[in-house]
């Protein structure tokens, strides 16, 4: 929604919709905070201080790494008018495959990490493409199938890590620690090479969207699917490719968390922070436009990192930040026709 708005000559001063939406969410969230007996100004100050102060910035970036990754993963199908709701399952598959490869592959350190990352992306990408295949060949709407496929994937990963691959030393539902050599290199503090990988993925997505034929064709599909088909775009192949890329990025995010911060696949650990849903909301906020998606992802990451500080300093639970995100999306969808597809 940013692109057409910017292109249209301004008749009069208009407040940017995103800013209005954030203000609206802040007010509704404030009412919610007041109703639960706390001071909203204090809450918002804690969110700001806890995310953007110099000391907190590395934590924000660390949180932003998977979130922006999942945002880009959601943005790619969205750009073509498709929605991938199965990010959770794809991320779990990526994480598990990365852990298995890093544990079992007898390769020297960095090679094992790279192989684990690629295998994770491939496995998760193929699983996501299954949803696209279901739509083109079996008439199952992707919106539904991508989500429904997510539950078996999560259940299966959970089973694998609870029974065949359980770490017998700790007895917890997690795999063994992956060897130190196969982990992602640390840059500073909590940050590791994973952040650079996500930056590279985001840059590639932006480039492909703006400069490459595939990006142009995908945008065309998003604006008018029938016209894209009429113009010679192979719609089935395109859907598979978009979903594969989306799933592959989601899988890479799972692998980055496993190889970079957790060092093992822990049952449920990838899904609890709900990167998938925050990422999807960031992508929706920008209507799938990659630069806007990255900015929105960074914004949501700051919001959530600040949420931890808020929870620490006040009595307000940090899940409030998820409520704020949902209100922003709803406000834009209702008031400014976010996501309304060209007929």
């Amino acid at each position: 929604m940013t692109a057409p708005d910017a292109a249209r000559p301004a008749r009069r001063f208009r407040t940017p919709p995103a800013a209005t939406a954030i203000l609206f969410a802040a007010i509704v969230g404030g009412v919610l905070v007041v109703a639960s007996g706390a001071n909203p100004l204090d809450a918002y100050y804690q969110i700001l201080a806890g995310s953007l102060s110099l000391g907190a910035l590395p934590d924000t970036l660390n949180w932003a790494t998977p979130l922006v990754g999942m945002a880009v993963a959601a943005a790619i199908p969205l750009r073509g008018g498709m929605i991938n709701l199965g990010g959770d399952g794809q991320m779990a598959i990526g994480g598990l495959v990365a852990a298995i490869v890093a544990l079992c592959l007898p390769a020297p350190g960095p090679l094992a990490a790279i192989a684990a990352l690629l295998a994770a992306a491939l496995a998760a990408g193929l699983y996501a493409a299954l949803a696209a295949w279901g739509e083109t060949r079996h008439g199952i709407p992707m919106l539904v199938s991508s989500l429904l496929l997510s539950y078996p994937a999560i259940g299966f990963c959970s089973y694998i890590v609870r029974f065949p691959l359980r770490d017998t030393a700790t007895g917890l539902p997690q795999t063994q620690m992956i060897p130190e050599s196969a982990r992602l290199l640390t840059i500073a503090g909590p940050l590791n090479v994973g952040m650079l990988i996500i930056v590279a993925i985001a840059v590639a997505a932006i480039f492909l969207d703006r400069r490459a034929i595939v990006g142009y064709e995908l945008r065309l599909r998003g604006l008018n699917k029938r016209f894209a088909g009429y113009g010679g775009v192979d719609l089935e192949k395109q859907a598979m490719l978009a979903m594969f890329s989306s799933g592959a990025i989601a899988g890479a995010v799972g692998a980055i968390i496993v190889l970079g911060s957790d060092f093992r696949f822990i049952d449920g650990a990838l899904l609890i922070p709900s990167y998938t849903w925050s990422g999807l909301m960031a992508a929706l906020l920008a209507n799938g436009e990659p630069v806007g998606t990255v900015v929105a992802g960074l914004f949501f990451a700051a919001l959530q990192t600040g949420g931890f500080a808020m929870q620490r300093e006040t009595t307000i639970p940090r899940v409030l930040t998820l409520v704020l995100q949902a209100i922003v999306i709803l406000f834009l969808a209702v008031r400014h026709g976010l996501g309304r597809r060209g007929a």
Partner: protein
Amino acid sequence: MSDWITPFLIQSAVQAITPILLAALAGSLCQRVGVFNVALEGKILIGAFAAVVASSYMQSATGGVAAAIVAAMIFSLILAYGATIFRGDHVVICIGMNLLASGLTAYLLRVLFGVSGVFSDPAIVSLGKIRIPAIRDIPIIGWGFFSQTVVTWLAWALVVLISLILFRTPVGLRLRGVGEQPDAAETLGVNVAGYRIATVIAAGALCGLAGAQLSLGAVSVFAEDMSAGRGWIAVVAVMLGRANPIYSAGACALFGLADALSIRLQGEGLPNQLTDISPYVVTLAALVISHRKRLRAALPSAEIDAASPGGVAEPQPDTR
């Protein structure tokens, strides 16, 4: 194989069907008036939460059910007005609503009760069961219904009632007209937006009931995201049933049976991580099979079927 179909299995299947069935009825109604409602999941969750809160404060299951209905109806206003008066995108609004429901219930759970994850309290009064000993020994039907909540009975009664309203009354005719030919309906003096708003709010009430059954029916707890995809399975049931309440009920029965079987398989010693996935796998399989059948039955129209899931034309944003 015969010892697999036990009275207990059928009873738990009927229990598992209720929330999905109610949500599928809600989805069918919305589909009929041309609103693609995938916010069923969020509405169930809001209903389940409101039911537990009211039940524990008021010490009354009836109060819980009433609160669930009211809360889900209020929550539905977002879609009711957002999709009609404001002409927002149905799918994006619904995704936003699902996430809002998930966040809001988790937030209120912490603020009101100071717990996260699962909330159970002896103060929560669960729904009473209507026991009919007379039908206890009738195979299948009797096994299923001899001891169920009033919500379950209501759900099956509503299947009949809503079918009658949709296909046998003038109101139902107008409802279907609003979905199939909004312009024609408008010309005949039917208030299209009004019908859509009223239907979405009524669907909210049905989802509220579904939520109440979920949190006060078999158990009396609220767990975060306890709807666990049931709203989405209901969406699939609507598609399989082509927005016909009776056919959708059939699809729901299939999923309920799969759910109950998964509990049974757990009893056989299979890990629950594997058995829990069976309803989703059955759902996906049913979608594939139904599409195959449809292909064989009507080859020329296959293209249209693929374009409009559920057989009802996907709602287009009014551009009048």
